[in-house]
């Protein structure tokens, strides 16, 4: 669905160098701190920003050359952008009907009712949760083949987050060829939803791994200095000096469990991956 190949984009104080793939039928997560380059990557995929070099293809077509017809097959929810807040949901529904030939008006109305989104209230009077739900709904009610979600659950309470995740799951179940590229700060969302994860930091992809592998195989070894000296470091991705000795991030925790039975091994989730690889681990 998406192939980003050796893309480079230089700004005054930031440089992006990215390669990633989102295959058909897969959910791919793009994680990283604020300012890591997630939104710029998404904008390039959508053809809104032109790369200096490399190529970005969506549906086997250069993203910068995507036509209206191509974009009809993509559903997009951006973190802080949407339809004018002076419009109400009724207006949005009418616009989408004209915008997308495949727009499912019945589904849109049904979901608005289920999610308690008021049809006649102007968007600027919506709560954060309502706005987020509307953004996701707008993206997924025209039978898009590809969803691109930039922080769809940011600032939401648990209930609203679960509602959005349920919507995304329903969307995937309807057609197994559908794909999602999602960015999020909330690791539990990604762990539940994504097949694979890209970690981006300072404009570069640091890690690409299947979510199952991260959850099963990644871990943090907590060792004192003496143990650290003797430790086989072949599967250590990164080590950080701590008060007690070293925190070592590994992608083969079973190796260390078998060969070093005495050491403390904590499970490594996406949060730990982000923190250790981007230098924020405490």
């Amino acid at each position, binding site marked *: 669905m998406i192939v980003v190949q050796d893309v480079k984009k230089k700004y005054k104080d930031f440089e992006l160098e990215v390669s990633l793939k989102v295959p058909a039928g897969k959910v791919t997560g793009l994680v990283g701190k604020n300012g890591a380059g997630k939104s710029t990557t998404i904008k390039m995929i959508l053809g809104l920003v032109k790369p200096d070099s490399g190529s970005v293809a969506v549906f086997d077509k250069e993203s910068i050359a995507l036509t209206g017809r191509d974009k009809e097959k993509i559903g997009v929810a951006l973190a802080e*952008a*949407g339809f004018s807040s002076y419009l109400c949901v009724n207006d949005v529904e009418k616009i989408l009907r004209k*915008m997308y030939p495949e727009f499912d008006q019945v589904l849109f109305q049904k979901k608005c009712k289920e999610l308690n989104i008021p049809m006649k209230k102007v968007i600027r009077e919506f709560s954060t949760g309502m706005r987020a739900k509307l953004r996701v709904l707008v993206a997924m009610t025209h039978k898009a083949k590809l969803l691109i979600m930039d922080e769809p659950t940011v600032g939401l309470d648990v209930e609203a987050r679960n509602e959005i995740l349920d919507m995304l799951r329903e969307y995937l179940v309807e057609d197994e060829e559908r794909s999602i590229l999602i960015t999020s700060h909330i690791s539990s969302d990604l762990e539940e939803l994504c097949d694979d994860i890209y970690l981006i930091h300072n404009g570069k992809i640091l890690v690409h791994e299947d979510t199952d592998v991260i959850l099963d195989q990644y871990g943090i070894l907590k060792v004192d200095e003496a143990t650290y000296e003797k430790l086989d470091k072949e599967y250590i991705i990164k080590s950080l000096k701590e008060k007690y000795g070293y925190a070592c991030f590994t992608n083969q925790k079973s190796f260390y469990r078998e060969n070093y039975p005495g050491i403390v091994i904590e499970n490594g989730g996406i949060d730990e991956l982000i923190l250790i690889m981007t230098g924020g681990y405490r």
Partner: protein
Amino acid sequence: MAGLVEKDLRLLLQRKQIMVAFLALAVMLGYTTEGTFILGYLPILVLILTVSTISYDELDQGFTFLFTLPIDTKAYVTEKYIFCGIAGILSWIISIVIYSVSGIMRGESVDLLSEMPMLFSFLAIITFMMAFIIPIQIRFGANGSRMIIMVIFGVALILVFVLKKLLGEEKLVAMQHTFENISNTGFAIIVILGVVLSLIISYICSFRALKKKSL
């Protein structure tokens, strides 16, 4: 394109109270004010309202979202000219109706046929204004464009003043005579060509301004 028109119509309808107030004021002014004031007043207000949809589009990173929808910059710019153009023509027609009815109510004889050149000159002025404002609005946004338009008008006023001083009274009168000697048909052709040319230049500028915008 149909989706964009729908969006702009719905954005306009959000300000229906203002539109009704403008229309009521136009009817009142048309009736109480003699002359052609109403022919310029209503279309210019409508033009300002329709062009302001660009500001609404830009609010809260709106452009970024808008271009994730199945439209491109060419479709967006084309729709703005069509939308503002149609609104301008409709408001011009309404202003002619108000102008005629007001004249009749005041007991004046209204001969629209003989007034056609004057009526169309208003349409030409409105089109020139549209061609002038849209690219500035796209390039500089709501606040920037206000400032730029004021600066341009200021510079234009100074230029007129300087030209008047440089050319002197005699040359200006001679120029006026030259214009007066142009036949109605010739003048109409010049105006039509001017309008078409200004629209083409304006469209190209709008398109380039939008392409350069960081989304």
